[in-house]
């Protein structure tokens, strides 16, 4: 596709890949009349998803992320629960009216479906947003939401799955409470696992002065370990590997050599890119599998309508609440992009395929609907988001050369703001950030960073060095 720029400018790469997958699947099917390749959940969850999420975490702009963490958490948790509940309940309500014909499902099945289709998908968001270049605050909110809602999705999915398994009669209040508690356990547990492994990784990288060659190996292995450990403990593995990447980036980048750093960066990008490509192609291929196709017009159409409508409502409501607490307000235009950018992707598909069809009788319907929804959001919304962004004149990122002045004065501003916060007796972001960086400088860096790295890791110096390097070339 890269040979024809005209096409790629209009159509997002992910959409093209899905189409390619469809074509390939069609060829295979026509040739053999059997559907051979399919995206199995195991392959997806254990091999394809981790590199993408690790790449996201490792290169996450931490300051932006933590600065907007409140908003991100609100959208991720409340937003996803809202989407799941409303979609599931509405579908059930419509089912009761009989438009959908006869389906072998109860309320819980619908809620289960709602929970797996509700989550915004990080892979899809990354794939589409990286071609659109919206401003960083917007991007980080949508992307952060897509990463953090994994915990919610996992919990909801498992909770409803067990409910369906034990049958609707046995669901009591206690089970619901257990569900809520398990949410906290899963999310906090996953995060802690990630942080623990980040700590381990940074510590290991501190001592690898004499074994530089295998430094990149450590980065990948230990991060993957965090993913696996979380999976093993039934905690949120996406959260684990995300936070592993987020927390270790500073120390690892400081400790490892230049060549290792470059190696890590390129390998990570390559794996993430490759995994993304494979995921979308497989989505296309798996769709060409006549065994699983069950068509129910009303169900599919209504799902599409409901998820879009409820996402918009959810975003608007939450933004209204958030704007009371945020300094940088989120405008209507931002909200439009946020609602429109709520793409569903392969995670939903994999979860749907994972359903046990002895317990969930309508699994095939759910799977086919999921495929349609994913295709719709990725292809249609992916195609139209770029013109939409341009038409609405959304603020875009400007790719700028780092200027020494900006960094220097930026630092000065930070100090000024913390001082003013102290003087006016408030605890704000700057105060917290300062406290953290003091703590970090006194304890964490001493433990986790190599002595030689500790001296020279100042941001202003980094910009200075970069500029010097550029001049020298």
């Amino acid at each position: 596709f890269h040979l024809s720029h005209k096409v790629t400018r209009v159509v997002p790469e992910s959409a093209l890949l899905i189409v390619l997958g469809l074509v390939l699947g069609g060829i295979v099917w026509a040739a053999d009349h059997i559907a051979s390749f399919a995206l199995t959940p195991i392959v997806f969850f254990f091999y394809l998803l981790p590199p993408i999420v690790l790449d996201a975490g490792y290169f996450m702009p931490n300051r932006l992320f933590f600065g907007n963490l409140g908003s991100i958490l609100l959208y991720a948790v409340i937003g996803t629960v809202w989407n799941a509940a409303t979609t599931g309940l509405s579908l059930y309500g419509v089912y009761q009216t009989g438009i959908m014909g006869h389906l072998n499902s109860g309320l819980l099945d619908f809620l289960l479906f709602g929970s797996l289709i509700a989550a915004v998908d990080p892979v899809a968001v990354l794939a589409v947003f990286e071609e659109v270049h919206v401003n960083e605050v917007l991007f980080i909110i949508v992307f952060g939401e897509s990463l953090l809602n994994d915990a919610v999705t996992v919990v909801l999915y498992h909770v409803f799955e067990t409910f369906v398994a034990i049958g609707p009669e046995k669901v009591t209040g206690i089970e619901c409470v257990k569900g809520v508690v398990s949410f906290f356990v899963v999310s906090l547990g996953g995060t802690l696992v990630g942080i623990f492994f980040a700590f381990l990784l940074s510590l290991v990288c501190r001592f690898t002065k004499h074994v530089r060659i295998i430094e990149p190996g450590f980065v990948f292995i230990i991060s993957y370990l965090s993913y696996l450990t979380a999976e093993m403990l039934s905690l949120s593995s996406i959260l684990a590997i995300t936070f592993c990447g987020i927390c270790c980036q500073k120390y690892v980048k400081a400790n490892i050599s230049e060549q290792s750093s470059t190696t890590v960066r390129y390998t990570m990008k390559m794996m993430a890119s490759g995994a993304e490509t494979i995921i979308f192609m497989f989505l296309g291929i798996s769709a060409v599998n006549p065994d699983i196709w069950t068509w129910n017009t009303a169900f599919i159409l209504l799902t599409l309508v409901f998820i879009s409508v409820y996402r918009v409502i959810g975003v608007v409501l939450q933004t209204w609440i958030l704007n009371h607490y945020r300094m940088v307000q989120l405008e209507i235009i931002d909200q439009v992009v946020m609602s429109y950018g709520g793409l569903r992707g392969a995670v939903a598909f994999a979860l749907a395929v994972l359903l046990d069809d002895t317990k969930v009788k309508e699994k095939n319907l759910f799977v086919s609907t999921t495929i349609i929804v994913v295709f719709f959001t990725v292809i249609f919304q992916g195609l139209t988001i770029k013109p939409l962004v341009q038409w609405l004149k959304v603020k875009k990122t400007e790719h700028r050369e780092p200027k020494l002045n900006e960094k220097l004065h930026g630092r000065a501003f930070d100090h000024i703001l913390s001082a003013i916060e102290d003087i006016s007796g408030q605890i704000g972001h700057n105060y917290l950030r300062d406290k953290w960086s003091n703590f970090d400088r006194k304890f964490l860096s001493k433990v986790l960073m190599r002595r030689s790295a500790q001296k020279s890791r100042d941001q202003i110096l980094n910009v200075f060095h970069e500029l010097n390097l550029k001049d020298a070339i």
Partner: protein
Amino acid sequence: MGSRASTLLRDEEIEEIKKETGFSHSQITRLYSRFTSLDKGENGTLSREDFQRIPELAINPLGDRIINAFFPEGEDQVNFRGFMRTLAHFRPIEDNEKSKDQNGPEPLNSRSNKLHFAFRLYDLDKDGRISRDELLQVLRMMVGVNISDEQLGSIADRTIQEADQDGDSAISFAEFVKVLEKVDVEQKMSIRFLH
């Protein structure tokens, strides 16, 4: 709100401060109780020692200079009006203000005034320019003691080189504004004041 705090601040005063700075009624009363809690001498004004008593300010590299910014030229005490006037620089710029009348005096928290505040922190001798030495001093305070003087010097030189347009090896206010034109100063120099 203690009874002492509210009796000492008359409503007309609050109105005047509101008009001058743009803070809301509740923000002003809240900041007033903060002012009185800092005022250990209980004489209605703050001295430099009162500020220095704030623990986090002591480890802030620019702490002393910021404290100085509160005190008008040559004075050692600042009253509540002056306190609020300085804090007003950091109010976020609200949308409804942008369309207010252009003929009135510029609000204290305009972009230009925010930048001016920062500029004054660098420019100690108040000659309207940041010289190499002044920049070097600030750099040394902010970047820390691990860097050699040479390196600091080159950083300072480079910074001036980036910004300097009229070739006087110093940064004037106009050059300062120009070099920061792409930075979202409204956001970077504002804090949300609680109600």
